[in-house]
């Protein structure tokens, strides 16, 4: 581990770009306080390089989400629906409400 350079934090040399890039995910996730969100938003409106990072990250998320869409195969969907109906029948007969199906409802 390299020794921490520990930059002296001078409130008058607040690095707005660094801060913005550091908070960019939280900003895009909508998870900043209103006050912080405004600070970042103001900086983005005035700083083209930071704004291009923001736009890039927004688009990346969209591309990732779009590429990951899936559809449940029809036969799997039907199988799950059947399973749930079967469970439901078992549950209602266990409740004493009586089997809703003829078939294999065991009568003992």
């Amino acid at each position, binding site marked *: 581990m390299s020794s921490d350079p520990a930059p002296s934090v001078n409130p008058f040399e607040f690095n707005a770009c660094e801060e913005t*890039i550091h908070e960019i*995910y*939280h900003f895009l*996730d*909508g*998870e900043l306080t209103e006050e912080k969100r405004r600070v970042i938003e103001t900086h983005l409106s005035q700083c083209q*390089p930071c704004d*291009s*990072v923001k*736009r*890039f*990250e927004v*688009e*990346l*998320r969209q*591309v*990732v*989400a779009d*590429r*990951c*869409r*899936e*559809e*449940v*195969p029809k036969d*799997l*969907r039907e*199988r*799950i*629906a059947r*399973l*749930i*109906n079967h*469970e*439901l029948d078992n*549950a209602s007969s266990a409740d004493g409400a009586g089997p809703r199906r003829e078939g294999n409802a065991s009568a003992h």
Partner: protein
Amino acid sequence: MADQSRFGEEAMVYADSLYAYALRMTRNPPDAEDLLQETFLKGFRSYASFTEGTNLRAWLFRIMTNSYINLYRTRQRRPDEIGVDDIERLALFRELGSPSAEDSALEHFTDIEVKMALESLPEQNRNAVLLADVEGFSYKEIAEITEVPIGTVMSRLSRGRAALERALADFVKHRVENGASA
């Protein structure tokens, strides 16, 4: 107390996104099908404990995450989380430069590349990224789904997103190398 007879109808709405999550976690369709089925069965059986009007989608994702851990976690030999905080951030942005709005290099990524990049991430980071960036869950929801504190969600997400950019940037590099040699 939620009415079990309505479970199928209410939960089926989320089947496609649950299936996508299952596919990314298990990396293969047969396991993803089993996981989806298991999630619906468990959901049905414990639906009585679900409070109606609360977040059914997050509740189902939580069941799926737990089922995945129970069914498949032991098979996993790779590290399940990125442990250091000093991975390069914004690797893909650096690789592609800052494209103008009309020139979108990101559109060139294929489904397979994005899926491979996601699936290459350590499990905990990948799940956080999937839940946030694909499913749009909030930090609080992800914390509930994965049963960890919000701070843990944030660090998993931040490292996961950095690693995802790194993985995608590697595809671009290979593409450039192959293109240059042609």
